[in-house]
């Protein structure tokens, strides 16, 4: 193709930028991304914007239904629980626990898994083979089972649950990083810096990382949706966040007894978890879709 603007510098966007250009043209994905940012906002500033305190008991207002109900009270928009605590405030505050902490956990797992994956991709032979087998073993143990075992060693509690889930999420990042690096190493462009005399680490950092980051991010969104479900599941089983904390899973577990008389105390946290996981999955799915479109071009 003849170039029309020979004076203009031709721009080659980085892979992550290319991914964004495709991503923002997918309506569903961009809506999900908006919701995702909304959740991030809530988890950072949630404690400042809640209408009530999360542990404030209002004994005159026990089990008030949501405002759209005839018995509802508009100052308690989503109703109250059996101790008269405002559901809306607890749900908003819970965003930082269930969603925000899953973000932190995945980031941590990504960093550690990425480093181990890079090391194993550079090394060959017995070390890499051992690591591979080890990963196979870890990946085939049910993740929640492993997390439960780790929690059993460390003892119940939200902090320990986070450690457990982070440890459990590391292997998949090792796997993805390793495979992606191996794939890139076979491509031609990696040869040029090597011929220029760049060390293996330098090639990895300057040439390979920018080209695999999209795959790693996609894996991160999938891992985050799994982490949200795991945090909530362990909270539900009573192994995670302690009772007064408004973690969605433990809120759901507390409301089990009220299931019949005050259904909103259990369906609201459940809906919150469902919404968060769907949003995270849709973002991941949108990214994956964009990557596929790019490859097909």
């Amino acid at each position, binding site marked *: 193709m003849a170039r029309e603007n020979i004076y203009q510098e031709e721009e080659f966007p980085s892979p992550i930028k290319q991914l964004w250009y495709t991503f923002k043209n997918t309506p569903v994905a961009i809506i999900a991304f908006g919701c995702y940012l909304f959740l991030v906002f809530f988890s950072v500033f949630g404690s400042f914007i809640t209408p009530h305190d999360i542990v404030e008991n209002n004994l005159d207002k026990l089990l008030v239904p949501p405002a759209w109900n005839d018995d509802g009270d508009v100052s308690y928009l989503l109703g109250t629980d059996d101790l008269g605590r405002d559901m809306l405030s607890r749900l908003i505050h819970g965003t930082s626990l269930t969603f925000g902490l899953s973000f932190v956990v995945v980031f941590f797992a990504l960093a550690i898994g990425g480093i181990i994956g890079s090391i194993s991709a550079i090394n060959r032979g017995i070390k890499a083979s051992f690591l591979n087998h080890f990963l196979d073993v870890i990946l085939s143990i049910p993740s929640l089972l492993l997390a439960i075992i780790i929690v059993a060693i460390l003892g119940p509690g939200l902090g320990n649950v986070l450690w457990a889930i982070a440890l459990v999420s590391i292997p998949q990042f090792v796997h993805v990083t390793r495979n992606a690096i191996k794939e890139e190493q076979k491509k031609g462009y990696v040869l040029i810096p090597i011929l220029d005399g760049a060390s293996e680490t330098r090639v990895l950092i300057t040439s390979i990382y920018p080209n695999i980051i999209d795959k790693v991010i996609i894996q991160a969104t999938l891992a985050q949706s799994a982490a949200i479900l795991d945090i909530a599941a362990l909270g539900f089983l009573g192994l995670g966040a302690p009772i007064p904390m408004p973690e969605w899973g433990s809120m759901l577990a507390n409301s089990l007894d009220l299931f019949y008389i005050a259904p909103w105390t259990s369906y609201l946290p459940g809906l919150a978890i469902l919404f968060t996981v*769907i949003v995270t999955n849709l973002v991941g799915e949108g990214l994956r879709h964009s990557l596929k479109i790019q490859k097909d071009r």
Partner: protein
Amino acid sequence: MLNFTLRRLNLLFFTLLMLSIVSFSLSYFFPGNVLVNLSGEVNADQQRTEQLVVLYNMDKSIFHQYTAYIGQIFSGNFGLSMSSQMPISYELKTFLPATIELCLSALFIALFFGVPLGFIAAIFHNKPLDKIILTFAMVGYSIPVFWFALILILVFSITLSWFPSSGQLNLLFEIEQVTGFKFIDILLSDSQYQAQALKDAFMHIVLPAIAVATAPMTIFIRLARTSMLDVLESNYIKAAKAKGLSQAHIIYHHGIRNSLVGIVRLIGLHFANLVTVAMIAEVIFNWQGAGSWLIESIFARDYTAIQGGLIALATFTFFINILADFLYAALNPLERHKQHGA
């Protein structure tokens, strides 16, 4: 095929070796006395403790301790449960079959509904039906199982009262436990209410199986859809079209058969996920299986039970994995000659 078998058996051996090392090291990681953690005998007197020291080689190096531990595992001695003081192997025999029963029936449901739905989505690619099925798959994949199980109970047991909300069998039926699998036990028993008992056991398993099956089913929908789309784009489908075969004929004779092969390989991979979901569902539906037993034992700080549960559930998952691999190799000759595993 021999090469393939040896490769898989090697992997299985390595996996079980790793698992046993992890399980053995747990008794050092868990708080408390190592010997008590291994044997679970909390109230052992001086004499018994000396016997146990000899049994587990506690006075020798850690390698000897490990070999002694392996020896005990292979002779079926997983120690005593710290809370109930019953042998772990006995408790596993009671609880594990229920989990296997639940997992396999959920797997069956997931495959039976998931795979055809995925095929339908692929055949109507980018049409409204495809979008509907994909949306359903997205919601089903994201729904937390403990919440979904509660909703199932609320709708089908409390409001509609179609199915019982918990347990495996109505206590009215006196079924002697032989294998632990409820359905087999009922068939083996000579109760005069055999048919009713079977029906009752079936009614009990429906809701938990649906709850467990939903997440894996949506995975199978997506797998089947991708697999079918790949097959439909391949050259032999084009050749079949050029030959003038009808669309239905192509799908039935070439599409379904070839895409099924790809799915079998991934069943094993996603089975771990299914077992995880089953563990939570067991707690909610009060299903007397290994998952709920394991979670209870965490609250009771029953470390021997945790070790036994880990070994049992992980081994079960591995065996299904390997089984799926063999099935795949049997169906797909290309896989057998691959020199390196994926």
